[in-house]
């Protein structure tokens, strides 16, 4: 096991910058998830750690060793691919033991380690099958088995669950997490799915357009997003954004929405009278209350049983409201909503940066 550190790592194709100076320290045994929309550079970054993509500038270290010019096979890493990438002409056991066989490991030792990994993943009965005779979930497991057998310093996952159906994905998510808790191998996991990121990560790295937006523990990102991108990307349903103007007087601070309705703002925030801001408010932080300060017209109601979410129009914008349990609203109703000052996120409308 080892730590991974990235120092000013860059990637460009000619003049096109796809990754801008990434700094990241991944501690020994940590599970870090790189998340972002497609094309944000997360897979490129992972492939650079794996050694499959050249590093244009900067330095990558695994453990104490700088690996910029080390071949993938010598970096002591294992990678799980989205398409599983099993060798189609080898059976499961040969697939899992292949990297060891290439390193001229003793046949008996290979069998023991393949057997151990197969036990762990419940693949015992499938060892003699070919990849094409396996289901998607089983293939995914073999791909993980292949990684485990190597006992590498770092696991790299490149969207490993994206090809599975929704139910299996949730199941495998738990399984990977449990596996990491047993093995405690440093892992870097790439996904575009924020739920996967939130549920699995020790730490999340949110990326957008080749730039790291924020790094932090899942709930830290959820509670203190550093800009509107992170705020909107993390959490489902997503955060509501409303343009507002600050009104400040001696005894209270408020954000005045476009139609004059107002939201309470913490007095400690460095905003002054007349400032333009973007107010961010999570759906679950809007409460339906008879004495709420705001009124909104309900447009769509989505009952989910456990919870209800509805979309309403507030100050000319569609917003989402999330309520646990059932709520008796229907399209066309006007509801009174309230929010607490401490739940409000304020962002600079120009730069999108958080105002604390």
């Amino acid at each position, binding site marked *: 096991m080892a730590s991974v550190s990235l120092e000013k790592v860059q990637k460009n194709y000619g003049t096109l910058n796809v990754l801008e100076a990434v700094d990241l320290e991944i501690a020994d045994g940590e599970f870090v998830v790189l998340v972002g929309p497609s094309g944000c550079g997360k897979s490129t970054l992972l*492939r650079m750690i*794996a*050694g*499959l993509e050249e590093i244009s500038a900067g330095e990558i270290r695994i453990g104490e060793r700088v690996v910029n010019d080390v*071949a*993938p*096979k010598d970096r002591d*890493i*294992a*990678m799980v*691919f*989205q*398409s*599983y*990438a*099993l*060798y*189609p*002409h080898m059976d499961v056991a040969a697939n899992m033991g*292949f*990297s060891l066989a*290439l*390193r001229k490991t003793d046949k008996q030792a290979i069998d023991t380690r393949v057997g151990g990994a197969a036990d762990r993943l419940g693949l015992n009965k499938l060892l003699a099958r070919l990849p094409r005779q396996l289901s998607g979930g089983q293939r995914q497991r073999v791909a993980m088995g*292949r990684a485990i057998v190597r006992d590498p310093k770092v696991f790299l996952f*490149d969207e490993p669950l994206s090809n599975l159906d929704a139910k299996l994905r949730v199941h495998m998510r738990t399984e990977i997490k449990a596996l990491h808790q047993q093995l405690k191998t440093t892992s870097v996991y790439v996904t575009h799915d924020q739920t996967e990121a939130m549920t699995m990560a020790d730490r999340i790295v949110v990326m957008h357009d080749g730039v790291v937006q924020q790094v932090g523990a899942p709930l830290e990102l959820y509670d203190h997003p550093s800009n509107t991108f992170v705020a909107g990307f993390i959490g489902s349903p997503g955060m509501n954004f409303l343009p507002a103007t600050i009104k400040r007087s001696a005894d209270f601070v408020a954000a005045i929405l476009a139609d004059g309705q107002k939201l309470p703002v913490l007095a400690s925030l460095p905003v002054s009278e007349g400032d333009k801001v973007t107010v961010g408010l999570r759906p679950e932080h809007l409460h339906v209350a008879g004495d709420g300060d705001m009124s909104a017209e309900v447009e769509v109601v989505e009952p989910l049983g456990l919870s209800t979410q509805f979309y309403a129009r507030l100050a000319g914008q569609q917003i989402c409201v999330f309520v646990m349990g059932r709520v008796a609203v229907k399209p066309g109703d006007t509801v009174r909503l309230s929010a607490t000052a401490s739940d409000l996120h304020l962002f600079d409308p120009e730069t999108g940066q958080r105002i604390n």
Partner: protein
Amino acid sequence: MSKAATSLPRTIGAHAVLLTYTLIALFPVVVIVVNSFKSRNAIFRSPLSLPTAETFDLIGYKTVMAQGDFIQYFQNSLTVTVASLFFVLLFGAMAAFALSEYRFKGNTMMGLYLALGIMIPIRLGTVAILQLMVASGLVNTLTALVLVYTAQGLPLAVFILSEFMKQVSDDLKNAGRIDGLSEYRIFFRLVLPLVRPAMATVAVFTMIPIWNDLWFPLILAPSEATKTVTLGAQVFIGQFVTNWNAVLAALSLAILPVLILYFFFSRQLIRGITSGAVK
């Protein structure tokens, strides 16, 4: 397969077309084989009838076996075909792998350049090739033929194989890289087995023109020791008298080895042609 595609009238229609085509394609072959077993008079009197007890005659085969060194000609043809095939597949696959796998300056131009040979008949260069062979002392050697046929087969091989190799998943090659395969072993152990159907397709398309070629053996290697079957059969075609029995017998015999090679590749070939079409 969808229901519409398997409906009875459509099946009959499709088979009628295919059968007609098969008949047309096989007709000359059948005529050659059938007539090779008949006496000379019978060949001319009723070329389409099957040999009967009276007209059955193995004189053609006897002539072929007696006259000229046909075993030697067969060996020459086989050597040239198999060696050329080997080099075309090896170098073609390697070039195709490089073109499809690595990003380098001029990649597309290089691909176009290598494929250009498909459109330019190699026979246009016969005179230059002959001069080259004379200068390098390769006239009347099988090496000369192998070199020419390798050059002739490469463009199509590179073109077809690079398309197929582009379809081999990058993840798979990368998994190999991480597991510790060298680029050569990725090529030989991962990519080649996966493009085997394409290789078979290329093999058949390369093999048949080489086996049947008369032009280059006649020009580059007409000596007794290096004659190929097609060239050997020409001795029975005279300016005034043609020994049809022997010509037909020689041609019938010449079909056999390619037929065997074809059976060898055909299972893969069918997969190659339908790959992508059926899952």
